């Protein structure tokens, strides 16, 4: 049952109608097979790009769709409700454009951004390393200045679209951590084209879920990157990376909400058909309550995600709310997808029905873009900091 959506503009409503049509006609029919065979659906991203759906949250002047996060996230949720891998990929693509769109010079933006946001190119984001996931400041990949170039050496782990992307937004160390003062200093951000010499992808990870989304380690073996491809100042990289992740978390919260909605829809359809003891199983209170809790969980996730989005759109701090949204939406998705398997009983445990896949897909959402333990850390720290500040929370009208 598609969610009731109230959108801020007519154009947003038309956008959501277009997305629903594409999701229904093009994504939903392909998802199960691509996930079963672990095929990366490049053609689906081409289609989304042609429909202008890959640059939605960026300004029109830069080639984006000029949509607020409140609208963009609802698009992601619709995509995620049919196919998590594509929802995650769309979010990661937006994440990989974040650095250039927000920290690039006008010349850099003019040169590279239109085709990145226009959807003809697909992006990837390289931050984590094998030994440094939750603690990115511990990264070891180096970028050493050599004339007009930087030379990148190291390996980046868990790269979504690794080996499939056309460009990589890469964080690498330009100075030693001990000499750079504050923790996380000395890291810089680079925009690396996929065909750069010395850049290669390891074999894709053999994952538990999201098989349609390629994840691989990217190796930088003396990759020469012209200095003009450094985004932001030297040493600004970690700040860029963390700012990008605040927005990226909202993307994952939206995809997880969609995933949970998809699982609930499947469970609901089954519970209305399947009979036990002479009545539909939804009419047995034990199952009815499971579905009711699932609906409450989905709506809670959606509300929290959109609340955080509206803060961001209003230019207010939203980092804490983004973490809460990511935490709530992904934990809820785990619960709802697990319960969906329960509702379908033995059938739910087979690969003939999609709910076991949804359950496998939900698990990673509690892990990536900051584990849910990291989200709790961020929330606790921001509570502590907020209490010190002691100021009243803002009350603001739309449009102010």
């Amino acid at each position: 049952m598609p969610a009731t959506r109230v959108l801020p503009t007519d154009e947003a409503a038309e956008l959501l109608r277009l997305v629903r049509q594409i999701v229904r006609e093009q994504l939903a029919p392909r998802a199960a097979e691509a996930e079963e065979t672990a095929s990366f659906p490049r053609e689906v991203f081409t289609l989304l790009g042609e429909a202008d759906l890959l640059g939605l949250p960026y300004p029109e002047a830069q080639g984006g769709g000029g949509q607020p996060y409140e609208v963009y996230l609802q698009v992601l949720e619709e995509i995620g409700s049919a196919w998590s891998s594509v929802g995650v990929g769309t979010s990661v693509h937006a994440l990989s454009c974040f650095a250039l769109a927000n920290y690039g010079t006008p010349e850099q933006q003019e040169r590279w951004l239109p085709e990145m946001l226009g959807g003809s190119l697909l992006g990837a984001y390289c931050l984590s390393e094998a030994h440094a996931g939750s603690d990115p400041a511990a990264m070891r990949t180096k970028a050493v200045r050599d004339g007009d170039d930087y030379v990148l050496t190291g390996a980046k782990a868990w790269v979504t679209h690794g080996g499939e992307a056309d460009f990589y937004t890469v964080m690498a160390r330009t100075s030693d951590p001990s000499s750079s003062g504050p923790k996380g200093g000395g890291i810089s951000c680079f925009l690396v084209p996929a065909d750069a010499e010395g850049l290669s992808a390891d074999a894709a990870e053999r994952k538990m879920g999201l098989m349609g989304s390629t994840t691989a380690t990217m190796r930088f073996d003396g990759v020469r990157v012209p200095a003009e491809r450094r985004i932001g100042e030297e040493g600004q990289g970690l700040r860029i990376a963390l700012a990008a992740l605040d927005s990226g978390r909202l993307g994952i919260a939206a995809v997880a909400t969609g995933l949970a909605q998809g699982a609930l829809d499947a469970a609901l359809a089954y519970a209305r058909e399947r009979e036990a003891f002479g009545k539909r199983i939804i009419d047995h209170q034990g199952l009815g309550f499971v579905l009711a809790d699932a609906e409450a969980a989905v709506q809670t996730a959606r509300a929290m995600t959109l609340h955080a989005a509206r803060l961001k759109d209003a230019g207010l701090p939203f980092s804490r709310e983004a973490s809460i949204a990511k935490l709530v939406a992904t934990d809820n998705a785990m619960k709802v997808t697990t319960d969906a398997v329960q509702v379908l009983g033995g059938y739910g445990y087979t690969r003939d029905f999609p709910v076991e896949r949804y359950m496998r897909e939900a698990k990673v959402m509690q892990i990536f873009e900051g584990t849910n333990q990291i989200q709790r850390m961020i929330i606790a720290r921001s509570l502590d900091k907020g209490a010190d500040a002691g100021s009243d929370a803002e009350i603001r009208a739309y449009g102010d």
Partner: protein
Amino acid sequence: MNIVVCVKYVPDATADRQFESDNTVDRVGVDGLLSELDEYAVEQALQLREKREGEDIEITALCVGPEKAVDAIRKALQMGADKGVHVVDDAIAGSDSVATSLVLAKAREKIGAEKKVDLVMTGMASTDASMSVIPAMLAERLELPQVTFASVVESQGEVFRVRRDGDTATEIVEGRLPMVLSVTDQTGEARYPSFKGIMAAKKKPLETWALSDIGVEADQVGLSASWTAVEGTEARPPRTQGEIVTDEDGSGATALVDFLASKKFI
């Protein structure tokens, strides 16, 4: 090149269809959309423009239908057509193909009075009435050659060469502009509008004409002026339950074969 694509607003084939008391299709009380078969014509017009890059090619979506039918034009504009013309007049309701082709031809003449029209494109049929005669009638009224049921369209200059797949043979037919061209559902899937296309469509010119604007009298169209009328309609009978063959004594295979033979499947 100036192209006019005729687009029809039809009831959504996936929803219930209704008829008015005079047995005409209910086009007002049901959800409608741009006929899928006409989407192929719009797509071919857009592809033509893309293939002939550098030429000045204008595409006008022309629709005859009630007020809601403007949605069909809007979809064509969202896909990439440049402007729309909507002929709407209460007197048109109930028109058969002959009367509709008169309205289309007169509208096309008015469009042509401003700027010469080189090509009139249509789908292979509508998804509601499925008459498939409008292209021929239009060609006759406009005194143009007709090239119909094209499954592949190629063009060079003013010469159009199409493939026409028949049951027993495939023809290659060549025509020269100006002409009427209808395309089939084999020409290639129609594109989705892009988000920017949807936005841009709002600013594209869309004219609404009444019969008086195109020089057609009310008594030349509508149900009373139509040469044909639907006498009655009957809902398709509900699907009957299938036949279950139970193989209890080894006769199941024979029963299956008998069933298939009785239906002339084997």
